């Protein structure tokens, strides 16, 4: 049969998840810029509101919450640093011995944190609503070279593989008496026995991988056929161009000094 199977042709469904990946990238870029270029609280507030609303309808709030939790140590430290150590602040909230938290510090810290959360959650939203395969397929359709596509795709898939390999290497060296549970100065001696095989293993594989790719006509000239074609309907295209225009306008207005 010549029909492609469902699992290849089927497109993701759901609000925002079904939106074209390229469009989502441009929207995220707009959100990131807006978080920084719109003045005061407006930037972070608008972006966070948009991202949270989209995530809610796309049913990805829990993912965002997990991400937020992971970011909390950074958030916490930025707040603390600004609260206590903002240079030039002179409006203390209280005096705790040598430490004096300031209102301006609090204000500035909260604003910084808000910006940070806004732009990083915009990026996280793309990650939560798009699969790597669909993203690469879309970039490929838009003309991104096959080598770049391969590098990105392989890199993403290689991460779990490399972690697994590193685990095996760790086991092999521990079985030869390398101490990983004892005193720290002993553990420090384990760098080369651990890093060595990871690097050498990856390098020796490169040649074989290259040959395997060439044996599958990887460097054939001309456009590659795409089996997986993400949706790119009118709304997707409209949204992409609108976001692109807004992005350019935002940068232009800011450069012209019209914003605060």
């Amino acid at each position, binding site marked *: 049969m010549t029909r*492609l199977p469902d699992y290849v042709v089927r497109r993701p469904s759901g609000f925002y998840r079904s939106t074209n990946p390229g469009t989502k990238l441009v929207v995220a870029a707009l959100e990131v810029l807006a978080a920084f270029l719109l003045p005061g609280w407006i930037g972070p507030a608008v972006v966070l509101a948009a991202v949270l609303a989209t995530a809610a309808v796309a049913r990805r709030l829990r993912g965002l919450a997990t991400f937020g939790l992971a970011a909390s140590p950074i958030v916490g430290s930025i707040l603390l640093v600004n609260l206590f150590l903002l240079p030039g602040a002179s409006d203390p909230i209280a005096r705790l011995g040598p430490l004096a938290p300031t209102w301006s510090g609090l204000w500035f810290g909260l604003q910084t944190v808000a910006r940070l959360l806004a732009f990083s959650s915009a990026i996280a939203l793309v990650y939560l609503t798009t699969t790597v395969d669909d993203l690469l397929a879309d970039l490929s359709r838009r003309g991104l070279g096959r080598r770049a596509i391969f590098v990105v795709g*392989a890199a993403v*898939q290689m991460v779990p*593989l490399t972690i697994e390999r590193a685990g095996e290497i760790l086991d092999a060296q521990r079985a030869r008496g390398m101490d990983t549970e004892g005193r720290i100065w002993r553990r420090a001696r384990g760098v080369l026995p651990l890093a060595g095989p990871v690097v050498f293993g990856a390098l020796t594989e490169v040649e074989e991988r290259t040959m*395997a790719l060439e044996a599958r006509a990887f460097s054939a000239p001309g456009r*590659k*056929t795409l089996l997986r074609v993400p949706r790119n309907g009118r709304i997707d295209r409209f949204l992409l161009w609108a976001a692109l225009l807004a992005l350019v306008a935002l940068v232009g207005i800011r450069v012209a000094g019209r914003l605060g």
Partner: protein
Amino acid sequence: MAIELSAVRYRYAGASVFALRSIDLRLEPGRVVGVVGANEAGKSTVCLVAAGLAPGVVGGLLEGSVRIDGVETATLRPHELAQRCGLLFQNAATQLSNTTATVFEEVGFGPCNLGLPVAEVGDRAWWALGTVGIEKLAPRDPARLSGGEGQLVALAAVLALRPKYLVLDEPTSELDPAGTSLVAEALGRVARETGAGILLVEHKTDVLARIADEVVVLERGAVALAGAAAPTLADPRLAELGVEPPAAVKLERMVREAGIEWSAALAEAIR
């Protein structure tokens, strides 16, 4: 119509020693030729040279002539070589493209690279999956396959380019007995149903006894023995050439050397 290596000498880039000193070899469509020899006798090098990847992709110096259906491999680009001669290595994992989500797309990777129309890619993928016998693996994630499944997928992926010849470098060495059997069976089927010529490097001479028509024994980069599979695998010089003969040959030899009278019943039992 064959892959023909004539008076071939080959040296890897940066090496001082010739890995191949004198090779004459012929692979015809529909035939399975087994290649055996001690490690570092040049078996993997013969695979790379026959498939045209050496010196084309890996560099090095080649003397003599390597022709696929009359065309020198040196004049063909890698993607043209890929459509004439498929190549498979030991390690199934390094042969994955790492860019596809399903086995179906992995098998279609080659035809997609050639820019063939979608319908044809689908055709070829289903055909390759069917010939190897792994249609049920089609929806699976290529990164999560067992060793044996991975090799079968790699075989299907190479077949999808419809090459006339297949070169395999120890495809079963990392597989368990069940996986080895699957691959051996699939190869036999491929030779019969597609008429492809297969060059198979193997340590497991039992596999060759099962599916090979001819066997070539290499020693330090040169052909030491060659001929029809059964007599060559029974040749007493195999042991000193660093090759383990098939179990049946070994057992027969042990029985005869112990002075025990040979009989038809014994021959049948040891088969």
